[in-house]
């Protein structure tokens, strides 16, 4: 199923998300083409995006897209690493509409910027909140939490 995909894009790493979801690490630049390919190619038809997961690995971020295929009844995950300092990537909201809020959520909680996003602003936390709480360097009860007082 993924043979052509693997030849077409550079697969940096291949792992398994338990119980049985294949996870492909690809280059950050390829993400848009990869998703577009997976969505439209008749071999895969990953017509829906279940969710976008961001992780903080203390030195870099991982962004994973869990894709779901109605036709073949399978799931797969496409992931890439993102530098800590850069924290900027491209929005896929023109490929999967539901990515819009997922990306806003990641922007809110991790501070990762998504370029070309139609409406990138905080979603779960108030606009005046300081910091990005799911980053590992975010320390609770520091002065950034005093946003509520002003």
């Amino acid at each position, binding site marked *: 199923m993924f043979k052509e995909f693997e030849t077409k894009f550079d697969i940096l790493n291949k792992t398994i998300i338990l119980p049985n979801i294949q996870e492909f690490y690809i280059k950050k630049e390829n993400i848009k083409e990869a998703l577009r390919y997976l969505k439209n190619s008749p071999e895969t038809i990953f017509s829906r995006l279940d969710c976008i997961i961001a992780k903080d690995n203390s030195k870099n971020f991982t962004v994973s897209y869990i894709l779901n295929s109605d036709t073949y009844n399978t799931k797969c995950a496409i992931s890439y690493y993102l530098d800590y300092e850069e924290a900027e990537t491209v929005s896929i909201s023109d490929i999967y509409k539901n990515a819009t*809020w997922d990306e806003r959520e990641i922007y809110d909680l991790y501070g990762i910027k998504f370029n070309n996003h139609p409406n990138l602003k905080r979603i779960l936390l108030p606009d005046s909140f300081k910091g990005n709480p799911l980053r590992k360097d975010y320390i609770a009860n520091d002065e950034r939490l005093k946003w509520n007082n002003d």
Partner: protein
Amino acid sequence: MMKDSNGIMTKTSEHTMQINVGPQHPSTHGVLRMLVTLSGEQIIQIEPIIGYLHRGMEKMAETRTYLQYLPIVDRVDYLSGFFCSYAYISAIENLINTDIPIKAKYIRTLTMEMNRISSHLLWLGCYLLDLGATSPLFYTFIEREKILNIFEDLTGSRMMYNYYTFGGVKRDIEKELLIRIKKFSNEFLKAVQEYEDLITNNPIFITRTKNIGILSKEDATEYSITGANLRACGIQKDLRKDSPYLIYNNLEFSVPIGTISDSHSRYIMRIKEMKESNKIINQCTDWLLSNIEDNEINTKINPLTIKPNGTSLGEVESTRGLLQCYIEANGTEFPNRIKWRTPSFYATQAINTIAKGFMLPDLMAIFGSLDIIMPEVDR
């Protein structure tokens, strides 16, 4: 010209009014806020604003061990706590590679399906309340009360159960309770018939819901909408059938499917789903009653010492759709990352697409029919 939540520009005339529906509003089911632009009473666009119930579930996981996080999990969706528990626990069971005893599987299925019914009953009552009918709320609560009483006797709690544990369930189910469940499931069919008599063919209900809030197949896929909302479009997608977990393979039940996903067919889907769940409950109780002397409900794992490693995705077809719990474990007693994928989050996102162009009273009919619950959206 103005931007909507997805940044799409829509042309508006000068005669528009912005109205703030929520966060304190009788029919936003909690604390959803919708910024609705109206022309007369016609909805031009809706911008849902969420986050008023954000509790930082995912942040909380970082400082808690797997066992400490377990009771919090029920609060992700307080109306169907068993599903959230199951999603979390199945993810961890994948990681530590345990197989749970067959009786525990049956008990889990039984409780989850009962939970589905209780959640749907609350939805049904509240939905009719949104449409202005007060009585159905009380009728549905009569049946819901019976389920909650059974849950109370089984788990000790009415809504936040904390009943599943790694490798099984915490307490065995007793024979009297099974007989009570059996009695309930027999009475329940009559109750559903009563709701249908009252609601389904009610001319006002039909005018309010038929052809209101049509969700196309394409939009449903694009917005990753799952559960009854999706199945009403005519897409057969139910995790219980697609990749059966627990003992759904051994059970006889069908997944109801509609043709056009309007508010009315979404209502029909949920009514039918309740009947199917009732069938599953019947089968589970039958099995449990015939295997009453089987005492193995738990594989003995010490939950304090689990230090899994790897990534895992726990999935469950919850009341509102596909619920996923993603866990990245790093070999310590604390998880590195827990992510909840909740169905209501995506349904809320699609509300602008669904409700645009309808009238203000239809907004409640549409919003209610999507079965959105706010703690699940905000986590």
